[in-house]
């Protein structure tokens, strides 16, 4: 478009009122850059419209600018220095109060946190002490057993598994003939089925005479599976059978799990 064409097109009016398309805006801006007369025309159109608007405005409250600058810059106009210092000290006072309050809140929270931590730690302590006790007892027991096994007074008797009943089973008896005490290590025996219990026997071979020396009760829950048996008559052999709960008076030989003789 030529300079005259664009001026008379109605686009410049649309440009100022914001009522033309973005393509048309681009066209007008090209013309503004090109022709100073077009720019002048735009400025005059704008001035006429501004004057028209201003005549509709009437009187405007003079406080509006203050309200705008308050909203934007957050600066109050302070007419007197006295006011300034008072407001400064009150600001400092409030700031101090806020900081103090925040400090208290923080300390209260810290205190609560520490109390909670202390409770948790105490509980953990009790649990740990208990564990230590149990471990000490276990250790004492283990040391005790170790002494038995090592000592000269105890004879070690292996009880291999009965090939017909439990070929993989085995047991070991540590026997002190002076104190008539025996420890049976039954860790090599399978866990007895429900309602059954292992029973230990001392045996005289000729003629075959079994004597009940005790039940290996509580087998499943026993930690070491070391059983201490006392008052054992002088035996030639030891045997272990599986019996109904409560034990039997005579061994069930078909359920003989392990057997071994002394002096081998």
């Amino acid at each position, binding site marked *: 478009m030529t300079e005259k064409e664009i001026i008379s097109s109605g686009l410049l009016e649309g440009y100022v009122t914001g009522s033309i398309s973005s393509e048309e805006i681009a066209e007008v801006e090209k013309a503004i850059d090109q022709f100073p007369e077009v720019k002048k025309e735009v400025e005059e*159109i704008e001035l006429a419209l501004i004057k028209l608007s201003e005549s509709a405005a009437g009187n405007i409250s003079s406080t509006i*600018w203050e309200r705008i600058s308050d909203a934007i810059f957050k600066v109050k106009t302070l007419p007197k220095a006295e006011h300034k210092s008072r407001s400064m000290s009150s600001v400092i006072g409030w700031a101090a109060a806020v900081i103090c309050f925040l400090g208290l809140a923080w300390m209260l929270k810290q205190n609560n946190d520490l109390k909670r931590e202390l409770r948790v730690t105490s509980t953990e302590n009790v649990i740990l002490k208990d564990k230590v006790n149990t471990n000490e007892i276990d250790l004492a027991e283990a040391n005790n057993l170790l002494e038995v096994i090592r000592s000269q007074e105890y004879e070690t008797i292996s009880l291999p598994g009965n090939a017909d009943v439990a070929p993989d089973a085995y047991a070991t008896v540590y026997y002190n003939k002076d104190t008539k005490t025996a420890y049976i290590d039954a860790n090599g025996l399978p866990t007895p089925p429900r309602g059954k219990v292992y029973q230990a026997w001392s045996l005289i071979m000729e003629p075959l005479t079994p004597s009940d020396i005790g039940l290996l009760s509580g087998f499943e829950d026993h930690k070491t599976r070391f059983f201490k048996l006392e008052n054992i008559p002088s035996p030639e052999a030891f045997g272990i059978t599986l019996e109904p709960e409560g034990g039997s008076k005579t061994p069930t030989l078909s359920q003989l799990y392990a057997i071994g003789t002394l002096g081998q």
Partner: protein
Amino acid sequence: MSQPDDLIKEMQNGSQAAFAKIYESYHKAIYGAIIVIVKESSLAEEILQDVFVKAWNSCSSYKIGKGRFYTWLLAIARNASIDATRSKAFKNSNKNLHDENFVDIIKTHNSLSRQTEFIGVQKYIDALKPVCIELINLLYFNGYTQLETAEKLDTPLGTVKTRIRNCINDLRKMLLDN
């Protein structure tokens, strides 16, 4: 009017003083544009405040050379004013004022004040053709596009362009040639 590009740049760089000068230059026209839409002065003052706060906060989005700064400001003012007229409270109030256009508002202000400039204005306003009042009302005050105006008035787009050109020419003669 020639646009204060230097002040606009300073404002965009954060100058409060530049913003104050820009407010001084434009606030009256912007207020006039607002009150023509919302009619009521306390609401118009509230919107004027919001418009300039918004203008400050988003002034970096205005690009010098891409549209007039006044047009940019006017668009913010129109949107805020039209939004306000959609509120329930507004719809329930001043029902008899809703049909008024800028000529009625100018006349009202003129009758309320004895300032000579208004008396002059009224003389020119009375001379404005009814078709011009309608076009200026739609295109300038209510923010219709030329295309929307053509559709609303069932007039060819070319006619709308020619007529608004002539109407604003009349206005320029009335307002600027003295």
